[in-house]
């Protein structure tokens, strides 16, 4: 991505932005986030298929915001996250410049977040076939089989909260899991706490999750926790007409329709 490197360098030289957030080569053949504050550092920027982490999780961090105006190299899921964050008043045009990377791996520089939204809305959020198959398989199980499946799958979780750290939507300064009076989520690595943590995480992401799989990629134990958020996404489609991040529209879970489904209510 010479284009990206060149533009990042220009922006830093001109002082338009104070930091460019992108990917660089890490250890063991992996990539990691790069925070380029000097024009020279922009040369380290790379982009390839290994760049899967969601960089939008950094733009809400106080220490990154404190640097000044940020530019971010944003793939499609990152752009979606930026729009959702903007709609929740976490970022704005004043402190963010988006250098978009299209699915065809070309760079577009966006004037503002509204332009990013116009671009992102050309693409629907689609669930990959391998995940739809898995979800279908789970749907066919009996409730008790599903219960055993999840207790088993979640049992290795020791709540390192890597999924929370990797998620751009988990930006609360104090998370429910950190409350201990009362203790909402039991802390030990135990089936109950694991179940409740993952349930809480999934429901807090309902109608907000941009389906970037960053949580799954960050999980050191490979727990398929993105299945939960994918299921929420399917439900949003089934009941509320689908989810597409937007700075203008109401959030799915903070609005309502008088004719929402109520056949389960006595």
């Amino acid at each position, binding site marked *: 991505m010479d284009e990206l490197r060149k533009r990042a360098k220009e922006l830093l030289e001109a002082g338009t932005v104070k930091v460019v957030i992108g990917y660089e080569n890490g250890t063991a053949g992996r990539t990691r986030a790069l925070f380029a504050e000097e024009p020279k550092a922009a040369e380290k920027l790379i982009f390839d298929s290994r760049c899967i982490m969601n960089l939008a999780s950094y733009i809400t961090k106080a220490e990154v915001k404190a640097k000044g105006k940020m530019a971010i190299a944003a793939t499609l899921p990152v752009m979606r996250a930026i729009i959702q964050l903007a709609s929740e008043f976490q970022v704005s045009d004043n402190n963010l410049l988006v250098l978009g990377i299209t699915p065809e791996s070309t760079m577009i520089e966006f004037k503002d977040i509204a332009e990013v939204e116009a671009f992102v809305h050309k693409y629907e959020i689609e669930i990959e076939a391998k995940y739809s198959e898995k979800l279908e398989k789970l749907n066919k199980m009996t409730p008790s089989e*599903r219960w055993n499946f999840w207790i088993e799958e979640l049992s290795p979780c020791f709540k390192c909260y890597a999924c929370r750290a990797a998620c751009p939507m988990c930006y609360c300064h104090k998370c429910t899991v950190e409350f201990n009076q009362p203790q909402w989520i039991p802390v030990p690595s135990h089936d109950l706490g694991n179940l409740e943590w993952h*349930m809480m995480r999934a429901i807090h992401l309902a109608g907000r999750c941009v389906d970037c799989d960053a949580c799954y990629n960050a999980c050191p134990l490979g727990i398929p926790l993105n299945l939960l958020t994918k299921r*929420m996404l399917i439900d949003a489609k089934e*009941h509320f007409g689908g989810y597409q991040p937007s700075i203008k529209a109401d959030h799915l879970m903070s609005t*309502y329709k*008088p004719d*929402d489904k*109520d056949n389960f209510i*006595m």
Partner: protein
Amino acid sequence: MAEFEPKIVAFVCNWCTYAGADLTGTSRIKYASNVRIVRFPCTGRIDYMLLIKAFDEGTDGIIVSGCHPNDCHYTSGNFHARRRWIMFRSLCDFMGIDIRRIKFSWVSAAEGAKWANIVNSTVTAVRELGPYDEYKKVAKKPVKEVIHG
């Protein structure tokens, strides 16, 4: 062995269902005594975490009830709650939590008889399902916790 008596926790709103349950009492309608009523300002306040906590503490069934649509004291609390219930029910089902044990209903302040019916039918249904052993097994605390405050 004595017949299994389920424990039911009802989360109700102050303005409709709580008043409705009160009417059931003042009308001297008899209904199952298995239910423990928890009063909330509005169904919009009933956090799903509270429902999960009820299962943690050993309840076998849950009733969530509030004002009929368009009757909410705060105009739209029950509409917002309904959206949340749709998502919550679906997630519970997906994670294998028995959603037959969680009943949702609209009961107005004038529907004392309906409240008695809902409690009775829930108690009958949960009694047939038996104790919620699946959850209770998991909810057994690994370390005896000391509860402060």
